[in-house]
């Protein structure tokens, strides 16, 4: 008797829990697909940015590792070859004609050839790359501090973001771009790297020039950088969210 009652109770509980979890799950999926709910969830990004910026000293350095810590294989994610004719030509020319332009809200727009950039004082750092997927890899990067370039072009006071325009396009022809806050351009470890592990940057890792912005996730590290544009607002560029991945729903503030 008692046993039967218990079995009945158990069946009832199981049924109820099963039904409830199904309803809850499809409810979550409906919320995800709505327009208002992701906008609510996204409020957390502003809170995260405000709190993280307030507890992190402006020039605090990301941990720098020893040469023995370097990953044997540094995975290349995202595009591993821009695949355009123009880029292919740069490859055959060994990037001798590659130029980096800095334009937008600056006193003196400038451009540098790759060779000229390599003449500037460089910084070398062995740092950890944290992919949004969850894995980490350690590599040794050499490049020119973005802050040094900024001091030469003199940003206008109302410039708020540096937008990095890339040479690659995705399968649908959408151009890659990424953006960071002006304040982060001056962080000592924010560099445009042209070497990985003492060798010229290879194509999968963003040859000839890619951003290293060590305090945020991997998708902020724009590859194949051709142009830096200083802007006051991110709307009107690409999908308006500040980067290729941001336009796909990833957070602009990628500190976590």
């Amino acid at each position, binding site marked *: 008797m008692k046993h039967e009652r218990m079995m009945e109770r158990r069946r009832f509980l199981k049924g109820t829990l099963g039904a409830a979890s199904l309803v809850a799950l499809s409810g979550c999926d409906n919320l*995800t697909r709505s327009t208002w709910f992701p906008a609510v969830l996204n409020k957390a990004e502003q809170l995260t940015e405000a709190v993280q910026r307030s507890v992190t*000293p402006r020039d605090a350095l990301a941990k720098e590792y020893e040469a023995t810590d370097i990953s044997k294989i540094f995975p290349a994610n995202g595009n591993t070859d821009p695949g355009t004719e123009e880029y292919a030509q740069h490859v055959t020319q060994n990037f001798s004609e590659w130029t980096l332009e800095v334009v937008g809200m600056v006193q003196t727009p400038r451009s540098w050839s790759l060779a000229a950039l390599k003449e500037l004082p460089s910084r070398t750092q062995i740092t950890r790359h944290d992919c*949004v997927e969850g894995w980490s890899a350690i590599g040794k990067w050499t490049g020119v501090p973005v802050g040094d370039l900024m001091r030469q072009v003199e940003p206008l006071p109302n410039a708020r973001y540096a937008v990095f325009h890339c040479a690659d396009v995705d399968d649908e022809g959408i151009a890659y771009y990424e953006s960071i806050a002006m304040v982060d351009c001056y962080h000592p470890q924010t560099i445009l790297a042209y070497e990985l592990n003492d060798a010229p940057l290879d194509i999968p890792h963003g040859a000839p020039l890619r951003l290293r912005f060590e305090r945020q996730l991997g998708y902020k590290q724009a590859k194949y950088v051709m142009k830096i544009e200083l802007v006051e607002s991110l709307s009107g560029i690409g999908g308006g969210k500040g980067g290729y991945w941001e336009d796909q729903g990833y957070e602009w503030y990628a500190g976590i």
Partner: protein
Amino acid sequence: MAALIQSTGEAFRRVEELEPISAEPSASDSLRASDQTVSSTSSIERVYRHRLPVRVSHWVNVPFLIILIMSGLQIFNAHPALYWGDRSDRDRPLFSIRPVQTGNDDIKGVMTILGHPFDTTGVFGYSNRSGRAFPAWATIPSAKWLAMGRQWHLFFAWLFVINGLIFTAYAIASRHITLDLVPTEKDWRDIGKSVKDHLTFRHPAGDKAKRYNVIQKLTYAGVLFIVAPLIVFTGLAMSPTIDTAFPWLLTVFGGRQAARTIHFIACFSFVGFIVIHIVQVIFTGFLNNIRSMITGWFIVKHAGASHEA
């Protein structure tokens, strides 16, 4: 009965009859207020067991935790492998869940723990004709969608932390921790008996049921003050920005990938706790337990009343 309760140092409140109580007792200890009816053979006592802030923080945590676990599994699915140290050496993960192509166009789900593979087809690694570590029914969103999984996770992580901080502040101020959660000297002395009772599914009755037993205390305290902070701090240690502000996080946990692994273990400690907690709630008087967590009032049956097993 009254003498007995007072002799153990518990103040209690006696109400004439078993009548609904409109106002909440102002007693500082949740387990103190009680009213009871005495009949010739047995007595039923109503005990005010859980105070309002504890009940609220308990119930809001239910959806928070479920969402955090399920969106966390979505994030895990983006790179379903765990490592120790700072970097991911993909040739030697501690743990991985992968779809593996077998000879004849067949795909198996394989979970590998410290080098030992297990066939988990249908649940882990390959389910519903899709290669994914955790199945669609266990993740938020159900489809593979890392960006939205992160949005859910990082939003509810804030709510979980805020709820935890409010609870902790209240638990300290109201002495919930010292009065209800810290084992007494007697608890420690009787721990052997409590372990035996748990193993033999004997549950405390009568006056003993008014207070958490020692294993309960240790479990709740462990979840609240070890596992919950651990999951928050390992989560923070995965943040490259927070790592620059508090580099000691990497040192304490043994690297960013180690922190990710501990985060995952802490998550499954929560899952294990939740399962055992629900089983215990069901088997120690489901309605009484649920009522006490909703209204605060718990019924204790004294000698003569049937033993709730």
